[in-house]
């Protein structure tokens, strides 16, 4: 199968998938919080575009609602909130020193391959496009987790968390043309509440440890120190 044989819609989707994956990689290696947030917003925007594309080409009007929700939440509200935190905490000049950055990036690349490997059995029952889209979204998810593991800032964790959601969302839209509307609304509601709660938590953590470094949250453990 070659890409020129596919229709325009599929080509576009695949391009989007590549771009979304790229943004994930960009986030993974990003030490500056503000840029991280910006890339995250970009990813959200790509997602919105994908949704609109899907809604338009598949003539699936309820996906427009999803697109609006994504735009509002992931492109505007959450980046705005995170940015405000960063500025308030005066962290926008900090660069987080990432350990083993190269190894992490290579690991990320490996994860992408792994995603294809894992999802490979699916190819028998569906098209290659689906496989690609699912694999990309799975790797976005895994990269999000890797982001959380490798970054120490709570804000980076939130970004990672949300980018996992992005990956899921991408999968839902591309592979299944969107979940049933109730579910979509529910998920969006949860994301909203989660975002609000994150805001509350930043405040609490700041007041309690005067920092947003999650490595300092280590009082509860079972190790003899």
């Amino acid at each position, binding site marked *: 199968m070659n890409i020129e044989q596919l229709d325009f819609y599929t080509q576009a989707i695949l391009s989007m998938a590549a771009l979304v994956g790229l943004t994930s990689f960009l986030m993974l290696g990003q030490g500056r919080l503000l840029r991280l947030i910006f890339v995250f917003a970009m990813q959200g925007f790509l997602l919105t575009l994908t949704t609109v594309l899907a809604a338009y080409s598949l003539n699936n009007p309820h996906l427009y609602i999803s697109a609006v929700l994504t735009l509002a939440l992931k492109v505007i509200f959450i980046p705005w909130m995170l940015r405000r935190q960063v500025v308030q905490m005066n962290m926008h000049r900090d660069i987080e020193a990432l350990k083993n950055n190269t190894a992490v990036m290579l690991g990320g690349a490996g994860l992408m391959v792994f995603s294809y490997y894992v999802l490979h059995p699916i190819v028998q029952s569906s098209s290659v496009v689906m496989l690609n889209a699912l694999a990309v979204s799975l790797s976005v998810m*895994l990269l999000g987790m890797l982001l959380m593991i490798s970054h120490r800032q709570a804000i980076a964790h939130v970004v990672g968390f949300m980018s996992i959601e992005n990956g899921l969302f991408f999968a839902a839209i591309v592979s299944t043309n969107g979940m049933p509307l109730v579910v979509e609304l529910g998920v969006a509601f949860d994301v909203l509440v989660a975002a609000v709660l994150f805001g509350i938590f930043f405040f609490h953590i700041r007041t309690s440890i005067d920092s947003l470094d999650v490595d300092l949250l*280590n009082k509860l453990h079972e190790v003899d120190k």
Partner: protein
Amino acid sequence: MTLFLAYSAVLLSFFSGLLGLMMHQRQHLLAFNQYWLNKFPTVSQRCQSAMADCLEEKRFPILLRRAVFVVLGLSGVFAVLAGLSVLIGQGVITDQISLGLPWLPWHVRFDCLSGFFFLIIGIAVSAVSLYGPGYVNSYKESEHPFAVLGLFTGLFVAGMLLVLLADDAFFFMIAWELMSVASYFLVAFQHENPANRRAAFLYLLMAEVGALAIILGFGVLAGFSDGFTFDALRNAQLSTTWAGIAFALALLGFGMKAGIVPVHVWLPEAHPVAPSHISALMSGVMLKVALYGLIRFCFDLLGDVHWQWGVVLLVLGTVSALGGILYAMMQPNLKSLLAYSSVENIGIIFMVLGLSMIFMANGHPQLAALGLLAALLHAFNHALFKNLLFLGAGIIHHQTHQLNIDMMGGLIKKMPKTSVLFLIGCMSISSLPLFNGFVSEWLAFQTALQVDVLNNGVLRSLIPVSAAALALTAALAAACFVKVFGMIFLGQSRSHYCDKAHEIQDKGMLAGPSLLAGLCFLFGIFPGLIIGLINNVAGQLLGETLPNDAALGWLWLAPVSANQASYAPPLVLIGALLAAGVSFWFLRRNPATVMRRAETWDCGFGGLTPKMQYSCSAFTMPFRRIFNKVWIIDERIEKDMRGAMDQDVAAIRYHLEVHDHSWPHVYQPIENGVNTLAKVVGRIQTGNIRTYLGYSFATLILMLWVIS
């Protein structure tokens, strides 16, 4: 009818526990009484005043305690009756109680084996309930509430009785654990002492592990059959390996409760700290229930015994018997000494049971019946005399507030009645002729001597060696109990506690042990009474009875045949009385030789003091030297020096501690192992959220990799 008696016994013991709970409900009872009177004013005046009398603040606790023990005693009596009636009737009664799992109601079965153990429990419980009221009076209600003691005693007895009635694995385990848990609370009763807490913990832990082993044992059987009822389990067709595994599990489980070496450590910890009448029940009866379990499991459920199992039991039994008595000898604490001695006796029982299995597997069911009979008889006897000794120890503790044998002495003059009872106990447990302990030991020897019928050379040489070990055990037991009686009752008193001691006033506290002592003697002289009953058990369980138990008439005991061995305790008694009487009469007839009391000879040093007497550790010193590898001995002599150049000795202190090997070699490593393991495993919980995310990530990757 029989079943009714058995149920009554269970219900009464349960009820006695509930009655105990009333202790703190006096206010409610008063209110209820008031309400009742108001509602039925016609009740006669006398009745009313009697009720009011009973509920009076001071009398109420005493009356209630008595009532609880009366009900408990009734339960004991009913248990004895139930046991006797099933043993004589030789029936098998089954029933179902609609409790338990929806597809598995509680199955009940009452046969001769259960009946025999009912008898043991009944006698012990009756004696204890005579003894109890006097004993518990010394507890302060605020610190040691009677409600707890009464409730759990009742549950404990009910649990034991239910174990005997159970006819399916589930019901059996419930009853079994009820027994364990109830006795756990009794061990922990005086929980302000760290020793009690430690003992209770150890006890419950081992009970739990043992119970799990038993469950798995049942599980193995259930795996090869279609249900959990004993009937189904009996029909399980097991391969040799699986049968062996089932046996090993059952042995572990029941052995833990029975206290065979090396899983005996809870006994000497738990028995000393429980109230004495409870230790009497635990040591005298609960261990027997474990034995019941093993017999039921091996002889009844597994059915097909293998001779290798017999060898295992024989070896374990021998080790327990020797180990138990050697450890007992070194104990300064009376009750832990008695506990170790229980280990010894259980060891003897296991030995004989092993012999029985060996004979069974080699196709000599009659000799197997002999072995089973010896084992059951010893179990019965041990229940009697160990109960007696624990109750005696309770009296001593009650009067002197001491359990350390080294602090006693000379009590024979202060407590003459107790001393006679205790002496009978000591003589029975040392298996001296004329007392019941001897009969069972004699039967054990007889069983061992039948080894000639076997073809296997290993067995033929192994069994006599274990018989000799049994002889050594008996001799050591005699030495041990000479020490016990001598140090406690004879000589001069070694502490002021014993100076002040006096005979117990409460009649019940003497009546309980007297009952047991009387039975010890009775069955020592007329063992045929009980052996006849046990024969029925063997008949029902193995389908084979003793061939010739009364060939020479009822006076004689000739288990195999009159040509092989016989013993006539009544004749021996008559002979002994004759010999003693004649010599007594002959020597006392001259009035000029009336005995004269004089000062004890003191080698001219002037004045014997109690400290000059042999102490416990001095008495056992030769044994310590001879068997010194058996214990971990920590012996130190400290000298206080003074004078010029510190050359004069001012004082010498002797310090001796003797420990059990199993503790540092079996239990400590396990405990350390678990702690180390916990420490190592604890490292996964680092407290850092990124590590946790890493786990989640790694698990996901791993799982995806595994399935694809």
